């Protein structure tokens, strides 16, 4: 179990369920501030796993830099790995209802589970 914690957010990686849970509000300033999360994502991808779940259900807010980071992660998987990606999202969270489907455009193999 690994986690990255900020003032308004927490990101938890659970290897057993092969899921990364994003909670709270991600309003970090730019790529450098997102770097620790980005590193975590890459580490998971590199760890010979065959599937990963991104749980965004409790992620209330994500800014453009965050979206950029996740988008790049999708591209990286598409280009480099054969990993099954599942994204859990919610239509109740404004940013998710608009942006999550774009992840599938970047990674057509990804599975979207939207409440």
């Amino acid at each position, binding site marked *: 179990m690994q986690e990255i914690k900020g003032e308004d957010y927490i990101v938890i990686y659970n290897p057993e369920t092969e899921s990364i849970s994003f909670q709270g509000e991600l309003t970090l*300033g*730019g*790529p450098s501030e997102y770097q620790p999360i980005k590193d975590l994502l890459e580490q998971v991808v590199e760890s010979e796993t065959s599937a990963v779940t991104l749980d965004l259900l409790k992620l209330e807010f994500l800014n453009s830099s965050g979206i*950029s980071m996740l988008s790049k992660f999708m591209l990286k998987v598409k280009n480099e790995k054969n990993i099954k990606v599942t994204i859990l999202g919610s239509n109740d969270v404004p940013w998710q209802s608009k942006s999550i489907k774009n992840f599938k455009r970047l990674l057509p193999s990804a599975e979207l589970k939207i409440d």
Partner: protein
Amino acid sequence: MTQKIDIEILKNYSREDLINLIQKLQQDLVKSQQNNEDIELLLETITDFSTGLENEIHSRNKEMSSYIEKVKLVTKAAIAVKEGTFEENHLDEVACRDDPLGTLAQIFQDMVRNLKARETQLADAKAQLEAVLNAVPGTISWISMEGFYIGVNQHLAKTLNLSPENFVGKELNFLKSSPEFSEFISEFIESSENSKTAEIPIYINGEQCYYLIVVQRYNDGTALVSVGIDITERRKAQKDLELERNAFARFVPSEYLEFLGRENIVNIQLGDHVSREVSILFSDIRSFTTIAESMTPQEIFNFVNNYLGAVSPVIRNYNGFIMKYIGDSIMAAFPKCPNDALNAGIAHIDRLNEYNRGRKRAGYIPISIGIGLHIGHIMLGIVGESQRFQGDALSDSVNLAARIESLTKIYGINMLISDSVFNNLENPQNYHIYFLDRVTVKGRKEAINLYQVLDAEDEKTIDFKLKTQTEFNLALEFYQQGKWNQAQDYFQKVLNINEVDKTALLYLKRIEILKTTIDPHNWDAVWHFNHK
């Protein structure tokens, strides 16, 4: 952008063409990589910019929504105040803000704090007032102008075996315990009076009690408060006192008290007295001791009370009052005029005759009485010692009336009056009154004239008296002149007509004595009685 290269065509390319192509492709690749980097840079720049913007908007939104949250808290607090569930610390997290909302919350807290303090004060004052009102040993009720209970105090509720809540909003007479009270209140409401007092009967546990009720308007006359005190005991005491006084009144008549200028028996003191000129009536049963000899004490009492009960009312009927009873004798006073006394005396005889008819029917011997009337000053007062006193009339005049009465026996007539009575009568011609004698009684030097009242005699006596009138008057004339023999002749003539005429017999006996003791020339026509 580089054209798509057909591999088949490339087979025909020369080495130089190929090198050229590779060179061109290399250049294209570098260009493309350059482009790619530019686009990525552009993306980074835009992302950076939008991230900054988003973060700012987001933080403002957050701030705004937290502000709205606080406003919601204040609104909630207002509702809590209304519902009475507000606690001061409800707004602490808003009040600590350093902005207008914080100030609003602080003002709100202050206001609520003051309000609560006042509420507590008010509740304290109310509790205090209630405690006082409940401690008051009287009934208190608040009543609306429509005649309904607004409330009552503990004492009132308890008196009627209820609790104060049972009264709120009820009609005044909902217990049917006192229609008089409801009537009193509605009369008061309709009147323009500010307050009113009355003694009102109220049924409590089936017993009639009395309350002194004071009612008063309050709240600018829009409601009224009624305060009541139980006066049942007091009234009872008052009634008992009245009964007691009435009981006393039988011993000391109210006329007696009036005479003494006293309102009631309680005010009477030993030595109280008053001196006045009144007509005095003295009556006595003749030979009472002889009659009484054959009776038991109880029979004597019964007899005397029977007799006094039969004849006493006539005294009151003629404005007189009984000063005292002495055994079978009545001593009465008539303050107004001598006619009252004379009429009472005549009625007294009438009543006696009636009484005697009753006695005769029952097989008893009729009794005879004597009545003496006199006018004089009497001293009416209270004698005795402080533990036992009685009314009494102390006066020479009273004694004289008694002496005159006792003379009736000697003259054999029912009633004798003194000249003081005769001379003061109004319309003496309405009666049949005749001069009888001029005498002094034992213990007195002054001579008085005595008159017989025929109206008080029975028919037979009147008949004889009228028949012997001329002879009797002549006899008296001779007697007064000291002409003993002529006087004797005429008295004898009277006796010839009425052999039991006691007066004539008395005169004859007297003349026998006078003949030997008195010189007719010194005769003043006054006979001196030396016995009682």
